[in-house]
């Protein structure tokens, strides 16, 4: 079931970024080229704010807590490693063979976003960065290498 996603993961990791929409891809590629790690780029995306500029919103924007990236990674791990709550979305995604990385990133973002109280387009680049950081490895091998710090509501769905 996960063979198609494995084929994407075993390919060049940079392609996860390369297939994002241009407005997301360009700054991420620039920061990666500057030598930042995938995690550092993700943090830049989350904390970006024009220097020496006081924002004139009328309220404090919702979302974006310090632990946000950690929480996102936990949800991504739960999604990829077979948590029951994502079963329907996983089955849907893995049944869509031949779809590109942009589709995979978007589908995962849509599945995870409600658990993080964010809009899917906001986290799509973070999903792409996280998938790129996994490196060339199969899902099962990657899930097996993860610390068991996520309580999966069900295993064996892989």
């Amino acid at each position, binding site marked *: 079931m996960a063979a198609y996603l494995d084929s994407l993961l075993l390919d060049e990791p940079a392609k996860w970024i390369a297939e994002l*929409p*241009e*407005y*997301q891809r360009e*700054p991420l590629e*620039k*920061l990666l080229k*500057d030598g*930042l790690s995938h995690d550092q780029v993700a943090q*830049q*995306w*989350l*904390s*970006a*704010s*024009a*220097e*020496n*500029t*006081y*924002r*004139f*919103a*009328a*309220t404090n*924007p*919702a*979302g*974006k807590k310090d632990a946000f990236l950690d929480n996102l990674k936990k949800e991504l791990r739960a999604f990829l490693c077979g948590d029951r709550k994502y079963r329907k979305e996983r089955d849907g995604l893995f049944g869509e063979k031949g779809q590109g990385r942009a589709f995979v990133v978007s589908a995962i973002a849509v599945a995870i976003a409600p658990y993080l*109280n*964010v*809009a899917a*387009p*906001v986290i799509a680049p973070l999903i792409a960065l996280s998938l790129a950081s996994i490196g060339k490895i199969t899902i099962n091998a990657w899930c097996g290498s993860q610390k068991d710090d996520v309580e999966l509501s069900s295993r064996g769905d892989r």
Partner: protein
Amino acid sequence: MFDFGGVVNVVFAVGRTGPAGVQLAGSAFSLNKAGCFATASHVAGTDDAGLVLCARKLTNLNEYQDTSDSTIQVFPVRILASDPFHDLAVLKAEIPHQTSLALAGADDAPVGTQLSSFGFPHADHGRMVLTRQDTEVGARVLITSGGIKAKHIVLNIQARPGQSGSPIFRSVDGKLVGVLVGSYAPGGGGGISLGGIDPHTLHQTTHAVSAEYLRKMY
């Protein structure tokens, strides 16, 4: 000079619905694609739950806006695209509304260019008055955000909370050149607050990000 008479159908307030009603968050404007609107990403935030556009019934900007009338129309929106590096967001509403907006950018606004902005100053106090401000480009600057440099326009005018997301047009032809995002404040401000006002923001150095970055977002 460009006739901005139709701007009442272009610029809207952004709000978020909650148990106490709608809390205003900033300004937004209609784009040249059906149902698409732009604002600052820090106005939209990261969660689009309860996010709405707010409008009053106005036929033109010369009409007296009744500040005691709290009746507004709201349209639910979702975040279609968000670019925190350039502080821009595109919102999508399930309505066919669109404009013939001409999208330009900071490159089209040399120093001295006459500009007109439309937004909702003092929205943090619940005031929803669509307000025009005319000014000129004081400088063009590059401002770094998250390690990415972006073109900005310095507007020689004071702005207030609620104006983030306001469109900045060239007064002569109505071309969109920027989106208001805030004002200069050392360190981003927030260190001192007197009656809810940061004294560092009480000046006429307002920042608008170049509208050109919107092009790739919708």
